[in-house]
């Protein structure tokens, strides 16, 4: 066991080659204790990072000031987030007194192309969409489309309802004009219900949330004719 744990420690530090990585990943795949080991190492790093101002570097000759790291860390982290807000709103950052290294890290994050790509997608992404559907599942308001699913055996609960059922299958249906960047069905589980997000041919997105299986969701998606 010691050998594999030592290898995990080395992989944690990025010190294994490609073949060794595959071997370690295979060994820890079904061993929750080994997976937990990674998290524990991560916890130590987290503590070190948060306290690094308090730990004297062995190679550094410069004496660093001693201060309460928890307080400073909280301020730094809060400032880091505030920096993001304030950057967006074009406030004066210089008044924040934030940790320069944290500010630099955030600036790198804000200015990197990857971060911009993510930020661009952040407004409309799958997780946000799915969470919105779940959070608003009780709101069975009028659907803007007259979707008739009787051709595939589903009955609408009422003329203005989003809810459809067939036997023990029931779900709410949403069609929205959103670009979620998907080109095939995606599905999630929330408690005992499923959420299916399906891109329609006309560019809209169909979302079904309820007790249905994937084949039924695809059947419904293929049957939809938007009037």
């Amino acid at each position, binding site marked *: 066991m010691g050998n594999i744990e030592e290898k995990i420690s080395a992989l944690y530090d*990025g*010190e294994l080659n490609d073949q060794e990585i595959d071997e370690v*990943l295979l060994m820890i795949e079904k061993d929750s204790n080994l997976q937990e080991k990674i998290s524990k190492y*991560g*916890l130590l790093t987290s503590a070190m990072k948060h306290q690094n101002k308090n730990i004297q570097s*062995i190679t550094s000759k410069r004496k660093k000031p001693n201060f309460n790291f928890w307080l400073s860390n909280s301020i730094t982290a809060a400032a880091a987030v505030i920096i993001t*807000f304030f950057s967006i709103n074009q406030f004066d950052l210089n008044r924040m007194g934030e940790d320069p290294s944290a500010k630099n890290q955030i600036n790198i994050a804000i200015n990197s192309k990857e971060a911009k790509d993510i930020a661009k997608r*952040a407004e409309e992404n799958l997780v946000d969409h799915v969470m919105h559907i779940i959070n608003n599942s009780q709101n069975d308001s009028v659907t803007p489309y007259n979707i008739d699913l009787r051709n595939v055996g589903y009955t609408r609960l009422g003329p203005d309802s989003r809810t459809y059922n067939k036997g023990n299958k029931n779900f709410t249906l949403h069609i929205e004009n959103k670009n979620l960047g998907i080109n095939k069905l995606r599905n*999630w589980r929330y408690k005992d219900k499923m959420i299916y997000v399906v891109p329609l041919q006309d560019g809209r997105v169909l979302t079904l949330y309820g007790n249905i299986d994937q084949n039924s969701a695809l059947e419904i998606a293929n049957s939809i004719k938007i009037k």
Partner: protein
Amino acid sequence: MKKNSTNEDSLLIKKAQAGNEGAFNFLMNKYYPRVYASLYSFTKSKEDSEDLAQQTFIKVWQQIKSFRGESAFFTWMYRIAINLAKNHFVSSSYKKDKINVSTSDFDIDIPSYTNPEQDLIHDEALNNIKQYIDRLPETLKTAFTLRESDGKSYEEISLITDTPIGTVRSRIFRARENILTYISEDL
């Protein structure tokens, strides 16, 4: 090759980008505590931090192919986490319901950290990390600190301490294990 925070995960990231869930799970386990701690510093809520950390890793998995290594992996994740934290406070819908969305199409188990070690993030015990490090034998302390605090690669530590790389690797591992033992003894 010199390893730094930008490229130390490059092989794991490459594997995760190719769809290797084991590699992604490793990265997630490695960085969850730091992401969680960052979120906790902001939200001051264990529950919110857990929700946001889970959402962060779902997004990381969804978008990992877009990561091109122009910044450190953690920096990239941190940005995602910050976006989520921002939305958390802006969107009232996040406050209505705290959910754990599992991505069945990815079949990634987002870990739920309810064990005592994880609670250390909130705990005063972490204030004592330096105390735990100081309790290490000198050789272990040197290797561990050069790695974790100074970000040195094993090769660099080997040169600095005039020790074979295999010994460096062993010392860092034993340092980690010793510290975890000290912490568990204090719990």
